[in-house]
């Protein structure tokens, strides 16, 4: 049963009801948002605390898993001597580019195969199989094609994101109620208008949730790319950390990735909220 925000304010005069209910509803929304945030922060803090204690008391192998304050010290040190930010910027740049390009290309490809059902049927197995190629094994392709530079890294990112985006977005295009397209066609709308006026707006929620998936995939792609070829970036720091067996550095890089990914998530979430302002 949908509990209405104002249930219980039964003694208000009916004429005042709407404003009462509206106020109660807003309060509820605010309270819920606060509860969510509090829980999220609590989870984070508990996790950090347990990790810290486990590390300090040697319940876990510190060599392999380090602990938060050790990681924080390392990062603070690198931040202070200015050796951290160039890595962060490089990777953020690459990730941003990979994320945007991947989402755009994937959506464009999905649009193309939506346009031609024949093409979609022909390409379907190729997409699935291409998606199953381990991207690391394709390293030589990118290096030979684009040289051992940022191009190869972004290509790796695209290899990771584009096909998944295509498959997921295309699936959401297909899910759109045919009747919306019928309405457009009824008014003499062209195929392109059917797409722009019905298919695309109806799929926006699905595309936004693909954005969330892509935030993750772009990072994975960039880091894999940096594994293959790089002299700077968080992926580079990670392999370097592995090389010199400094897992605190590895985990520190992961922490930074998590932080920047959270920021990116916030951006996507606010886009989502803006699109959902309606209902």
């Amino acid at each position: 049963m949908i509990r209405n925000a104002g249930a219980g304010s039964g003694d208000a005069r009916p004429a005042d009801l709407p404003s009462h209910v509206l106020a109660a509803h807003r309060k509820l929304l605010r309270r819920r948002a606060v509860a969510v945030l509090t829980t999220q922060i609590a989870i984070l803090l508990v996790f950090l605390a347990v990790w810290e204690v486990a590390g300090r008391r040697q319940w876990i192998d510190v060599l392999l898993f380090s602990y938060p304050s050790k990681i924080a010290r390392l990062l603070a040190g690198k931040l202070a001597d200015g050796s951290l930010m160039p890595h962060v910027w490089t990777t953020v740049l690459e990730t941003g580019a990979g994320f945007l390009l991947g989402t755009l290309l994937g959506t464009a490809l999905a649009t193309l195969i939506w346009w031609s059902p024949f093409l979609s049927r022909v390409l379907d197995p190729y997409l699935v199989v291409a998606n199953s190629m381990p991207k690391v094994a394709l390293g030589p392709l990118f290096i030979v094609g684009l040289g051992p530079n940022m191009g190869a890294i972004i290509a790796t990112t695209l290899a990771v994101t584009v096909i998944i985006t295509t498959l997921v977005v295309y699936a959401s295009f297909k899910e759109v109620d045919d009747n919306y397209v019928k309405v457009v066609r009824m008014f003499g709308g062209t195929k392109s208008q059917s797409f722009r006026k019905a298919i695309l707006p109806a799929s926006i929620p699905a595309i936004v949730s693909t954005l969330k998936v892509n935030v993750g995939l772009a990072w994975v792609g960039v880091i894999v790319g940096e594994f293959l070829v790089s002299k700077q970036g968080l992926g580079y720091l990670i392999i370097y950390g592995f090389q010199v067996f400094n897992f605190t550095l590895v985990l520190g890089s992961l922490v930074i990735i998590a932080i920047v990914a959270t920021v990116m998530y916030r951006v996507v979430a606010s886009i989502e909220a803006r699109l959902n302002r309606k209902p």
Partner: protein
Amino acid sequence: MDEAKPSVVLQEVSHVYVSGKTAFLALERIGFTLQAGEFVSLVGPSGCGKTTLLSIVAGLIAPTAGRVEVGGKAVTGPSRQIGYMLQHDYLFPWRTILDNSLIGLELHGNITEGQRSEALGLLAEMGLGDVAGQYPHQLSGGMRQRVALVRTLVTSPDILLLDEPFSALDYQTKLQLEQLIADTLRKWGKSALLVTHDISEAIAMSDRIIVMDRRPGRLRRDIRIPEEIRAASPMKAREMPGFHRLFGEIWNEFEDMEARREPL
């Protein structure tokens, strides 16, 4: 009439819809009683809150203020005693017509062979016998509406809430279904709350007619149908002497509401 059947009581029910920055008072202090075995029609201009009221009685939405009781107990959510036929059919596109008809029973537990053939019988009675194995998108609008009706009827609820159940049907089919519903309800002593735009239908089928006003939704009139019209079948009722007077009375209510409104 069966004494064990429940009645529905509404007391001072108000409802406010909230969305985003606005709140809209859809119902204001609605109070009435649907006796066990009674058939009440709800008429009123489009947008006056009839569907909202039915959803509240069904327990699908909680009223902002006021109290709803079914069989003496406060409504806190949907119950098996109540069968609600929505204004739009919302058949499940992935189920056949027969499976759509059986969804209610399926949700109540296992389906017996008897119930299955009962549903098939009901479908056939409504002229849908040969489409039982098809899917909703293969049916016409009126056919889908009838499937939704079957879906509600097969669970044999004590109280039927019907939201414009015959709006997409031709006159003949409509009359026959009116007859079918009236017979069923009378036979088992069940009650019903019918939303309709067809004043004749309301008069022909009901024991009482409630006329609602709009902006905000309020009770305007509660009209008792004379015994002789009630006793007649829906088809016959339309030819009774008092029928036209009643029709005119309700008609005038609408005219009055209309007159109050900005020019349409």
